[in-house]
Structures are given as structure tokens and as C-alpha cells.
């Protein structure tokens, strides 16, 4: 177990050049040459689009008057829902969300009209001239209130294993309580946006900042009333996504496409930051009830929980998020009797949506709260209960999947090997005893996260590999590069499989005409799914080339062929053929130099009617130790250190994977600490700008952040045995909440600190005194 710094230079196995590739986009990023949607050179006559959105959270539109606005100089057209040629519907899972509000509005910020103007000023001026009259209806912002009124976005779900009710009878310790987590603004640095222009055959081309090119394509086709083949969506890269552009990029793609399609002009719709924050959904807030029962040896025998998910005004991805909350309701623990229920509640907030972890973090916070509740109540260390109940090979999860290659204990034990918990506890106590107004706290946070889309159908991907006649290679996949290093990983797969230098390979934009029917880049699975598809395509080409070498270039039909570093090896001996002349000759001989690869994750399945199956290709494990210091005079805190032991499998790109891990941890800490979404009782977002919604800056991150790579064999279902890394590390951040809470209790042991995140400086101070 070494830290990355050592590892990078000492212990890299085979293909060191590929493993140390890092992020291939970095040189373009640092020179400002990477192109995001708003950087694409635009065409003559481009229209600027602005949205007129609902000023209230719930109501009936009585009248709307935009005649005057539409007559203003520079205004080309104002679209209402009546101007939509196809269906006024953008709901992805459930058709419950209009593109432009019809007679009712359901959240503040809901798009009502689309203004197309010659320039931005004209569009802004038009906004100010629109008159609307809305009769208010009651506003609900609390999911429990919505539930009580029967307002649900989708059917409730329940996972059951064993018999929790009966098992509670055999428990020595039973505790019940509530836990809640607030939402989280994605705050991708690049706001949502799209640029579209009309193409032949009544079609449209859309450049979108989306994690789901096909979702945009499908939505645009629906809104325009055309076939999906009339809509081409192209994505070069995103300035961050984090789930916020999985489903919600479709709205702006549809806006740009609508104006462009109807007016036959290029059109661009880029949201201002405040529009983005006001109009788009965030991580789903949850309010939950838990009941936990342990025997006298601290084994958790039974666990019940009810999750009230704040879905916002439309389903969006909330039903799927809800499901993942249940999948991760017991985190890394084996509990034999589980009964967990989840409700997706309809409120008058912007439709909440995917955010790194996708409901998993919200479920984990509740079980961690329940365990902490028990530990505090019976007066033992929380980590004793955590360790005691860690899952292992052969354990069954509440949804029926049996755990294999479990690394949960392995990670935890490595953590204990490296950091003496007893000593840390003593040091913390000593510090707290000798300081009146500074208190330290620490916590442990294990994570077990399932990899695969929980909707089995979505676990498929395709890739298109072209080898051009000069030997250069273009690789297209259905995956979207958004900073996670997908391009680098795909390049590694292609270079390793074809046996050529990365300098010959280019990663193309993600385009629906090159790779169709893509799943969004989400669920941490993008590299696995698309990488396996690239692998398939490259292998097909290899096969053709090998046959060509054996039968046409030579007559060595029974020889073994391998291409390494661009040289053809025949029976392990370098031949006179290199990549360039091989490709030239293959092309002359009319060998197909293109291939489409396809991958569908094997084994996985899930039956929703019984809520049982094997939904995940594999799980990712880890444990993090978080140490903090609270300034008990001011109520502020610093994260002193986070030490994580993380199961990367056999990391194919340690630089990229470390970056994912560090970034995820800090994002998780942000969610648990300073990031506070505030809506008032009228459903108005008060934390509506970067000045009022704070994400971690460079001074607020952990002073020390070590990520230890747990060496394991990896998993064959992972690309090159390198496990998915996008989401799991975020959940280590949950440890920050408990560490801070512990420090608060060290100052004020009587404080009844609710299990409610984030634990802002305000909550800290209010609990200190």
C-alpha cells in the first residue's frame, strides 16, 4: 500500500507508457484551446435565446401578454407552448414535464416562453416587457408534506430481506430517529447550453453540453415531431456535469433546436449562472426515518428505513435515484433483516436530478446516522459497530445479490494498519482536554457502491473505430468527456489493443450519427461500457488485419501475429511490416478498416416485480478516516485530514483515478459542510448565485488528503480490470459531517445535534451554545 506519489514512479506493471498517460486533454485545457459549446465559432445570422420563466412556484396562468415584447426591435419571435410543432414534453422516464409551461406552472424558474432575438440586449429588453398573470396555488417544498397529501411522482418502492419486524423482538438495542440531507447544486463551471442550426431534409444539428447525447436527440425529435434520424447531436466536451447534464441538458437542447428548426436560423441558448441555478434541479434532498436493532454483541440484526425523497415538480430521474437509495440503504454492512421503503415526493421545486452518487449517498447517510445514534446512546465508539457489521463474501444484499470479491474488510483493515485508531482517539482526547475553544473530532466512513446502471437495459455501449489509409485512427464512442478522463482511457484501450502509439489516435466528439442509442455518461460506468465497446471494435480490426497478414502479406497461415509499438511481429519476431505500410496495403486490398464495437454487460439482471436480482456488475469499496478541528468561539471548522483506502482494482490510469478520488471526496465534503441550498416557503431559491451558494475553495479543502491505492486483482467486468471510480469517493465526504459533529459534542456534550446535513458553521455554532 503506497501513496500515489510513490506508486506513479515505482510500481507500474506492464505498459508503463499507457498507464502514466494522465489526462490527454490537459495540454489543450491549459492553453484555452479546448472547445465548449459557447466556444464553437457560430454561423452568420445566429439568434440569441432567452427564457421567460415562472416568477412563482405554483399557479394557474390566467393571462400572458407578449405582443409588445415581440414587436420590439431585434426580437424575431417569442415561442409559447402553442408554437411547438411536436409534443410539448421533455420527461425522460415519465412524460410529466412540458418544455414550455401550458396553463399551469409548478416551480419558480419553470420555462414559459422562449425569446429569439438578433442580439442579447434585445432578448433581455423583451423579457422586461412580458406581462403575466398567475393565480397562485399552494406551494409545497417539504417532501413529507407532499407525501401526506399523496403527491408522488412515481410508485413507491420497497426492498425486503428477512423479517425485520420479527427480528426487532430479538434485539437488545433498538433506536429510532430521523436523518436528512439537503440538496446540492452541481455547479459545473460551464453552465447549461446548446447551439443548433438547421440542416437539409428539415433536420437540425445540435451542439449540446450534455452527458446524454441520445437523451437530447430523443427529446428534440419529440418536441419537433420528427424522427430521431432528423436530429444530430454533437458533444465535444463538458465543463463539468456531475449528473446535472444527464437529463437536464435536454431542455436547452430542445430550446435551441426549436428556434432553429422553426426559424431556419442558427440559434444559441446559453444560461446565465443565475438562470441555471434557478431553472435546473439539484441533488434530491431526503428526509428519512430509521429504526435499527442490535444484539448484545453489537451485530445489527434488523434495519428499517423510510426515505422521503424531494423530487421537485417533475419525475426527471428521481424514480431511478430513488431505487439506488434502496440499493445502498445498508452501505457496506451485512444486515440479515432489512425493510426499506422509498417515496418520490412531488414538490414545487425545480425537478431534482442526478448528482454523483445518484441517491446512494442519501441512503448511506441514514444508515451511518443510525449506527452513530446507537453508538452514542450506548456509549461505545461508532467504528466498533461499523467494523463489526462489515459485509463479506457470500453475504446477501437486500436486493438479492450475493457479494463476491468483497473488499470492504480489506479496505477497513488496511486503514487500521496505517492509522492506529486507538492512538488517534487518545490524541484527540488529549487535544480536547487541553484546549477550551478548539475541539477535534474524527470519523470513519466505509463505502460500498454498486457499478452498473440499475436499469439493466442501459448497460450497453457502442464504439466506432476508423483507421484511415494513412494509419491514423479515429475513435468515437457513446461516452462524453466531462473531465473524468474518458478520452484518455479510451485512447489507452485503443492503443493497447491495436498495438500502436497514442500519437496515432484521436478521440472524436460524441455524435449521435456516429454512435447511436447511447446511454448517458453516468453511473460511473462510462469507461467500462464504452471501453469494452472500443475493445470489441479494435479486436475486430485486429482479426481482419491478422488474417490479411497471414493470407495475403505472407503465407504464414499458422503463425501467431501481434502488433506491438506499431511493428508487426510474426511468431514473436519483428517483421518488415509496420503499422503504416500494413494499413496502406490492407486498404489497397480492400480490407475494411472500420469497425463498430458493441458491449452489453453480461450476468446482470433485476426483477422489479420482486425487487430481487443481480443488478451490479461489481461493487467498489473503500474506507476513509476524516479528522477535523472546530473553532468553538466562531463556530467554524477546518478539515485537517482525510485518509482514504480505496479499491481501484487494477487502476489503468492512476493519475486520472486519483483525480477522480480527490475531487469526489472534496465534493462530498462540500455537500456535507458548506453547500447549503436555501428555498424560502414560497419555493424561491435564496442561494441563487455563487455569492450565496458556496462550494469548497482552495483554502477549505482538507489540509492533508491521502488516497491509498488498495491493490486487488480488479474485476473482469471492469475495463482492463480497472474499477469504476467516478461516484464512490464522493461518499467518503459523509465522514466530514460525523467528524464535525463529534467535535461539537466534545465542546457541548449535551447538544442534541440532529442528523441533518449540511453541518454549516451556523449549525455548528447553534449547537455549541
Amino acid at each position, binding site marked *: 500500500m503506497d501513496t500515489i506519489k510513490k506508486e506513479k514512479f515505482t510500481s507500474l506493471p506492464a505498459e508503463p507508457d499507457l498507464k502514466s498517460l*494522465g489526462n490527454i*486533454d*490537459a*495540454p489543450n*485545457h*491549459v*492553453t*484555452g484551446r479546448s*472547445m*465548449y459549446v*459557447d466556444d464553437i*465559432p457560430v454561423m452568420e445570422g445566429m439568434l440569441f435565446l432567452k427564457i421567460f420563466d415562472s416568477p412563482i412556484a405554483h399557479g394557474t396562468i390566467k393571462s400572458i401578454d407578449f405582443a409588445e415584447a415581440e414587436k420590439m426591435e431585434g426580437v424575431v419571435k417569442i415561442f409559447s407552448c402553442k408554437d411547438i410543432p411536436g409534443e410539448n414534453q421533455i420527461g425522460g422516464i415519465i412524460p410529466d414535464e412540458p418544455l414550455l409551461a401550458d396553463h399551469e406552472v409548478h416551480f419558480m424558474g419553470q420555462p414559459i416562453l422562449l425569446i429569439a432575438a438578433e442580439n442579447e*440586449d434585445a432578448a*433581455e429588453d423583451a423579457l422586461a416587457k412580458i406581462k403575466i398573470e398567475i393565480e397562485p396555488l399552494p406551494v409545497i417544498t417539504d417532501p413529507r408534506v407532499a407525501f401526506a397529501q399523496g403527491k408522488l411522482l412515481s410508485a413507491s418502492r420497497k426492498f425486503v430481506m428477512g423479517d425485520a419486524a420479527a427480528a426487532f423482538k430479538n434485539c437488545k438495542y433498538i433506536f429510532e430517529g430521523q436523518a436528512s440531507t439537503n440538496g446540492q447544486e452541481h*455547479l*459545473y*463551471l*460551464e*453552465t447549461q447550453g446548446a447551439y443548433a442550426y438547421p440542416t437539409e431534409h428539415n433536420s437540425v444539428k445540435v451542439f449540446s453540453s450534455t452527458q446524454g447525447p441520445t437523451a437530447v436527440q430523443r427529446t428534440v425529435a419529440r418536441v419537433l415531431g420528427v424522427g430521431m434520424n432528423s436530429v444530430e447531436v454533437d458533444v465535444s*466536451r463538458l*465543463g*463539468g456535469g456531475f449528473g446535472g447534464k444527464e437529463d437536464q441538458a435536454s431542455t436547452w437542447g430542445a430550446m435551441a433546436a426549436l428556434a432553429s428548426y422553426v426559424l431556419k436560423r442558427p440559434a444559441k441558448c446559453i444560461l*446565465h*449562472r443565475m438562470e441555471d441555478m434557478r431553472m435546473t434541479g439539484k441533488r434530491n434532498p431526503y428526509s428519512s426515518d430509521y429504526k435499527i436493532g442490535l444484539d448484545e454483541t453489537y451485530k445489527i440484526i434488523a434495519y428499517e428505513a423510510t426515505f422521503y425523497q424531494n423530487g421537485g415538480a417533475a419525475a426527471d430521474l428521481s424514480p431511478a435515484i430513488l431505487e439506488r437509495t434502496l440499493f445502498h440503504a445498508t452501505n457496506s454492512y451485512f444486515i440479515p433483516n432489512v425493510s426499506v421503503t422509498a417515496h418520490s415526493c412531488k414538490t414545487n421545486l425545480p425537478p431534482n436530478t442526478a448528482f454523483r452518487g445518484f441517491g446512494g449517498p442519501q441512503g448511506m447517510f441514514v444508515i451511518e446516522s443510525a449506527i452513530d445514534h446507537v453508538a452514542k446512546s450506548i456509549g461505545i465508539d461508532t467504528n466498533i459497530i461499523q467494523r463489526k457489521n462489515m459485509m463479506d463474501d457470500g453475504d446477501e444484499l437486500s436486493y438479492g445479490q450475493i457479494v463476491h470479491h468483497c473488499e470492504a474488510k480489506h479496505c477497513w483493515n488496511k486503514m487500521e494498519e496505517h492509522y492506529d485508531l486507538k492512538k488517534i482517539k487518545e490524541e484527540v482526547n488529549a487535544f480536547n482536554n487541553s484546549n477550551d*475553544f478548539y475541539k477535534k473530532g474524527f470519523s470513519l466512513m466505509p463505502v460500498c457502491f454498486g457499478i452498473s446502471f440499475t436499469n439493466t437495459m442501459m448497460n450497453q455501449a457502442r464504439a466506432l473505430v476508423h483507421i484511415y489509409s494513412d494509419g491514423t485512427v479515429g475513435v468515437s464512442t457513446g461516452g462524453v468527456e*466531462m*473531465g*473524468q*478522463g474518458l478520452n484518455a482511457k479510451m485512447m489507452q484501450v485503443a492503443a493497447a489493443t491495436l498495438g500502436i502509439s497514442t500519437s496515432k489516435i484521436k478521440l472524436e466528439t460524441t455524435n449521435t450519427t456516429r454512435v447511436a442509442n447511447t446511454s448517458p455518461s453516468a453511473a460511473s460506468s462510462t469507461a467500462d461500457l464504452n471501453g469494452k465497446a472500443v475493445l470489441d471494435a479494435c479486436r475486430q480490426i485486429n482479426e481482419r488485419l491478422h488474417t490479411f497478414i497471414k493470407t495475403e502479406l505472407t503465407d504464414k497461415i499458422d503463425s501467431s501475429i501481434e502488433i506491438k509499438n506499431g511493428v508487426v511481429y510474426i511468431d514473436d519476431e519483428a517483421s518488415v511490416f509496420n503499422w503504416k505500410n500494413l494499413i496502406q496495403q490492407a486498404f489497397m486490398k480492400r480490407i475494411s478498416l472500420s469497425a463498430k464495437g458493441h458491449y452489453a454487460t453480461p450476468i446482470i439482471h433485476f426483477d422489479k416485480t420482486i425487487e430481487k436480482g443481480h443488478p451490479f456488475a461489481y461493487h467498489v469499496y473503500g474506507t476513509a478516516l476524516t479528522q477535523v478541528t472546530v473553532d468553538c*468561539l*466562531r*463556530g*467554524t471548522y477546518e478539515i485537517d485530514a482525510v485518509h482514504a483506502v480505496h479499491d481501484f482494482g487494477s487502476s489503468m490510469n492512476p*493519475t*486520472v483515478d*486519483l*483525480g477522480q478520488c*480527490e*475531487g469526489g471526496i*472534496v*465534493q462530498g465534503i462540500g455537500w456535507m459542510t*458548506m453547500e447549503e441550498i436555501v428555498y424560502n416557503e414560497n419555493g424561491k431559491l*435564496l442561494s*441563487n448565485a*455563487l*455569492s*450565496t451558494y458556496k*462550494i*469548497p*475553495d*482552495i*483554502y477549505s*479543502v482538507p489540509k492533508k*488528503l491521502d488516497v491509498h491505492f488498495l491493490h486487488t486483482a480488479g474485476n473482469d467486468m471492469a475495463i482492463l480490470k480497472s474499477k469504476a471510480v467516478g461516484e464512490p469517493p464522493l461518499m467518503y465526504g459523509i465522514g466530514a459531517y460525523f467528524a464535525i459533529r463529534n467535535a461539537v459534542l466534545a465542546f457541548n456534550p449535551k447538544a442534541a445535534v440532529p442528523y441533518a446535513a449540511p453541518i*454549516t*458553521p*451556523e449549525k455548528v*455554532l*447553534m449547537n455549541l*451554545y
Partner: protein
Amino acid sequence: MISFILNNQTVVTNQPSGSTVLDFVRYHKRLSGTKIGCREGDCGACTILVGDREDGKLIYRSMTSCLMPLGNAQGKHIVTVEGINMADLSPVQQAMVDTNGTQCGFCTIGFVMSLTGFVMNETAKNYQQAIASIDGNICRCTGYKSIERAAEMLSEKMNEKPGETTMDWLISNNFIPAYFNDIANRLQQLKTTAENINDENGTLIIGGGTDLIVQKHSLVKRSATNHVFDTASLKGVRFENEKYIIGASTTVTDFAESILIQNNFPDLAKHIKLVSSTPIRNMATIAGNIVNASPIGDMTVFFLALNAEITLSNHATKRSVLLKDFYKGYKQLDKTKDEFIESISFSLPSAAVFNFEKVCKRTHLDIASVNSACMFQLNNDGTIEDVHLAAGGVAPFPKYLFNTVAFLKNKKISAATLKEGIKIMNEEIAPISDARGTADYKRLLLRQLFLAHFAGINKNVLKEILLQPAF
């Protein structure tokens, strides 16, 4: 016409002087490396470097182009990432690549420009200074640890450099392109031919733009504006007649870098670190902060506790008013329409203790939930001879705590005094609940910050008050 040097090109434009440099470089010059993240100076994705001659020297400072009015570029060197790109990556760019300091890349340019500003600063060398240079840059992907490693690499490199940083050294070490060598001369020539771009009849006076453009972007870009950011008579810190006089257009950075000020405020660096970020401090003017009358203006609270006086002018006549009497209500000032702030002044008692406190959701680069400043001096017998106390976030305007101050005078610092002081203070504040905290929190927080002011004098008092369960 506004004229300036943009990277290696002299530009002359008739774009509105109140439009932003960001829009100009992106949409008029198609320099798309500079990104738009928030348009309120809170993310740093649009950071550029601005070169100007200060005391005969060409100095480059980082600024957020989203808040910089184009008029403020007049006669200066505006540097975007395209202006530092060379055939090879610069050591700053290379460090960001080598440490994987970039993931999605959208914020990256801002970091590259800020760090380039760090290496161009002639005295900057150490790691803390490198980090301070990027205190206004937000990244959502990396968690900053890799960027810290890049900053470490750069500060190591800076430590290898002999003596002060010169343009020659920067160029020969590939930090910036060779054309920078000629910029000082080119700016000199430009200054002699530059027109006055100010509209003397314009009523909109704009300093650094850091508040006006956030609040009223649309208005500013369409108004006739008077740019006072570079008005020489309004800049600088001086000491005259036992008073420190700060010109209205002095930036927070100018103030913080003033030796005169530093000599009198031993904790100045610590206090200023709590105020916005490097690029914003490079733009924000002292008068702007005061006239904005934001209830939580950091510098305003700072000056209130110094019992500062402001000088107002309408060109024809001048008058002075104590800052504590300047605020009449929410955004209501003792100022006529044609008056502008010329300077702000204060005197410092020799034995004064000064403290500034600020708490927000995020310690740095945030707006205060509550801020407070206090200056006091004690007699030999420990009684408070003189005291000034101010707080932000607890009233509709930056609040000078008149009653509390009156009470504290001539009292000894004791638990009983401070407890009574808190009681009086609570009666003269009226915080409201908003995104920065509930009213109850703000009351409690001000109590804590009030006690923090006196913690340095008598730690036991603090314990006596706060560790009693009943309080």
C-alpha cells in the same frame, strides 16, 4: 475610442466603456480561452492579467474580466491565455498538466492566468503566495489537491530564480512570450495618444466595477460612465496632519500593500485574506465598498471601527462626514446626487488594539454572515479609554454600534462588562434571516465575534463567560 494592448495587438474600439472586458475578448475578438462561469467575480474562470505602469514600473495584476468595464482597460495591457501561449507550454501550464491540475478544463485558464500573475509578481516566491494567487479560482472537479501540487512545483521553481523577477528572466524561462519586453514602451506611447473616454455629463461613476457590474450589468453597459479607477488624484495612501488619507479609488490591494498601513496594522494580512479574493481586491475600490452601502461590506466595517471620516466633493465644494453618520437606512446615504467620495481618512491612537472578524459559510471568498471590527485603547489601569465597534450583517446598513460603544467607554474589561455590553448590543441590532443565516444565528455570532475582539486581552474573561452553562 478606447485603446489598449490586447495580448500582442493594439486595439481601438468604440464598444461601450461600461461593457465588460470579458464580452469584448470573447465575442468581439473571438478569444474563447477566457471562460464565463458566473459573471459576478466569484469563480475566476474569466481571470485575465492587466498590465499597467505603477510608479514607473509595469505591474501585472489578475482581474476577473467579467466585472472589468472596458473603459478601465484604457491604456493598459490586457492579457488573456492566448497572449501567453507559445510553441511550448509555459512552466505554469506544464505544472498544471504534470500534476493533473485540470480535469474538465473549464476553470483551468483562470488558474493558469492567476498562477502566471504569481510568477510575474517580482517578489513572489513561496508556496503560500502561490496559493494566495489562486484564492479567487473555483474548481469543481479536482478538489484542488493536484492544483496545490502545481503551485508547489512553481514555488520551487521561483525559489531557484536569482533576485527579483525581471521581464528578461520570465521570457528566457519561457513563462511569457518575448513580445512582453516591448509592452512598457508601447504603453508609454499609447498613453500619450489616448483619448479621454469619460463622459463628463455621465452620472454613473464607476470604480473597479466589482459591485456595479454584478448588480446592474445591463444598466452599466448602456450608460454614459465616468471611470474613476485610474484617476490619479483619487488614488493612493498618504499621511498628512496626523491622519491617514486613502484616496477613493485606492483598491483593497493598494491599501493592503501600503507600507504605511502595514506598519500600523500588524494583523492586516490576516484580515485582508478574509476579504473577497486576490483578483477582486485588485479591482475593488475603498470608496466603492463604502458607497455601495452593503450591510456586510467588509472594508466599510473595517473603517467604521477606525472612526473614519469621508470627504465628499461635487467638484465645486467639499465637505466631511464621519462614516458612522453616513448611513441613513438601507442603501440610503448622506450624499447628494452630484457628490462623490474623494477620500477617506482616519487617525490612529498610539496604543490602539484593532481587530477584524468575519464568519461566513466558507471562510474565504465569501460574503459575511456577520463581520465585525473593533478598535480600543486601554488606560494604564485597564479601563477602556476609547473604543469603536462596528458590525455587518446585523442591520440594513453597516452598523456602528453607538450604544455599545457608549457603554464600554471607561469600563474595565471584565466578564460583567462584556455581558452587559452584549445585552446592549443585542438591543441595537436587527438582523434578518436570509441565505447567509437566520437572525438568531447572526445574533449569537455577533456575540462571539464581539468576545473575540477582547479575547487577546483577557482569555479568562472568555472562559468565564462562555464556559458557564447558563450563558
